[in-house]
């Protein structure tokens, strides 16, 4: 009998708990719904120029303008495409150089003076990664003027974060035994780095650098939008002169470039690692 009563009480308790959970859930749904409605209202309903968009037919018509390829543009894309790859490559290489202090300071087991150097390296990595490449490019265009140099600098700075973070983590995980051995033969800290640390993290580093290079091709192909050279600049020009098939042509060129980057990355990675 006692057990039957206990069960009834238990049922009551569970039902009470469930209805409370249901209330909380409904509240969460309501809040999410409200947020969505608010966002749709501000970004789409109020912010869109409905009069200019016109009817559905008009929209389709505008889209149709982009169909087609401007064959005449292709010969003029070769140089910007090359420039895009060069910006990506130089930017990645410069990024690797700039990475060195971030890696050295940012790995807990080798950072020279933890309280200062470690936070400094982490700040470098975070700054590099949390600011968009377009914003970096705007900054460097302002600093060094229009052109590919600004693009190279933007790509380089934007690359520090990822390469440094992955490499520093690899260093933190490395096998300490060779490190001890090189210390024991009387090697300097620099020699310890070159002989015991670098060989262990080199495969990781090379993989990360290739991966970053591939991403940098994507990045550098849009940097022209803010005047930092490459295909993006051509894209921008087509858009401004309402040459819509030309826009499509540039997009296709960018696609080809990215595929090329992926292919190279795949084969290099296979060869190296």
């Amino acid at each position, binding site marked *: 009998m006692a057990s039957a009563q206990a069960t009834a009480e238990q049922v009551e308790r569970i039902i009470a708990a469930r209805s409370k959970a249901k209330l909380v859930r409904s509240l969460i749904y309501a809040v999410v719904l409200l947020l969505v409605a608010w966002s749709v209202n501000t970004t789409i309903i109020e912010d869109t120029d409905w009069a200019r968009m016109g009817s559905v037919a008009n929209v389709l018509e505008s889209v149709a303008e982009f169909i087609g390829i401007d064959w005449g543009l292709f010969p003029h894309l070769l140089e910007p495409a090359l420039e895009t790859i060069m910006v990506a490559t130089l930017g990645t290489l410069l990024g690797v150089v700039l990475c060195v202090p971030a890696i050295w300071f940012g790995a807990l087991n080798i950072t020279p003076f933890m309280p200062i150097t470690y936070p400094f390296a982490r700040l470098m990595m975070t700054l590099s990664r949390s600011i968009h490449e377009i914003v970096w490019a705007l900054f460097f265009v302002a600093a060094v003027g229009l052109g590919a140099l600004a693009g190279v600098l933007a790509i380089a700075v934007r690359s520090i974060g990822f390469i440094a973070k992955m490499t520093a983590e690899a260093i933190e995980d490395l096998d300490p035994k060779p490190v001890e051995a090189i210390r024991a033969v*009387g*090697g300097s800290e620099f*020699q310890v780095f070159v002989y015991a640390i670098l060989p*262990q993290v080199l495969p990781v580093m090379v993989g990360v650098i290739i991966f970053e290079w591939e991403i940098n091709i994507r990045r550098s192909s849009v940097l022209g939008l803010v005047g930092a050279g490459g295909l993006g600049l051509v894209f921008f020009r087509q858009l401004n002169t309402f040459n819509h098939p030309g826009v499509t042509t540039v997009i296709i060129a960018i696609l080809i470039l990215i595929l090329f980057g992926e292919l190279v990355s795949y084969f290099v990675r296979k060869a190296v690692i």
Partner: protein
Amino acid sequence: MSILSVKDLKVRYSASGPEILKGVSFDVEEDDFFAIIGPSGAGKSTLIRCINRLVEPKSGSILLYGTEVLSLNSRQLRRLRRGIGMIFQEFNLVDRMSVMDNVLSGRLGYVGNITGLFRLFSKADITRALSVLDRVGLSDHVDKRADQLSGGQRQRVGIARALMQDPKLLLLDEPTSSLDPKISREVMALIMEIAAEYKVPVLCNIHDVQLAMEFCNKIIGLQDGIKMFDGPTSEMNTKKLDEIYAMEVL
């Protein structure tokens, strides 16, 4: 005159931690092959590592060829270390480098940073490396990567690297514990021959008492950071061993 003279060595790994070595003293003569035996955790590795200051002792004195090791600055310490060969239980090779580069790394204490960086070792160093590799029986494996060798071969690379240093003292931390009994015996025999050829005293941690008795002329017995025995191998007996290893079953 003794080559190495350790006095009242005390070690703690942290200020609040336990004392790992509680005042150890001993002397090493020119032709000594010392075995340091004792139960696991007695402080054998700690003791060995103090000699080249991979571990910093809290107090005491270590006189090596008349130099006080504990008062050296970092530059002098590197100079000292390059003259002390160390051989490790797990070989501590750089796996991704060739046997040759691993052996040449024994010269790092003698070359500048640039030489080290670009691996611009002199002809003399390379000739020496080849002859040392020949001495340890690895002539056929010069260009292999270190991780392609067997355990016994890897330890021979470790020995070759130590010999490249032109060592005035050899420190061995359980050089055979990662090897099977037969290879262990071969490696110990090789080390003993080489020590005699190069006239270097040896300080060797070893937990295989049998090997210690066979190859070493003197023994230090450590237990819980205290020296329990110090004398010629001939004076060691079962009763004293039982004392050193206390309750442990041999």
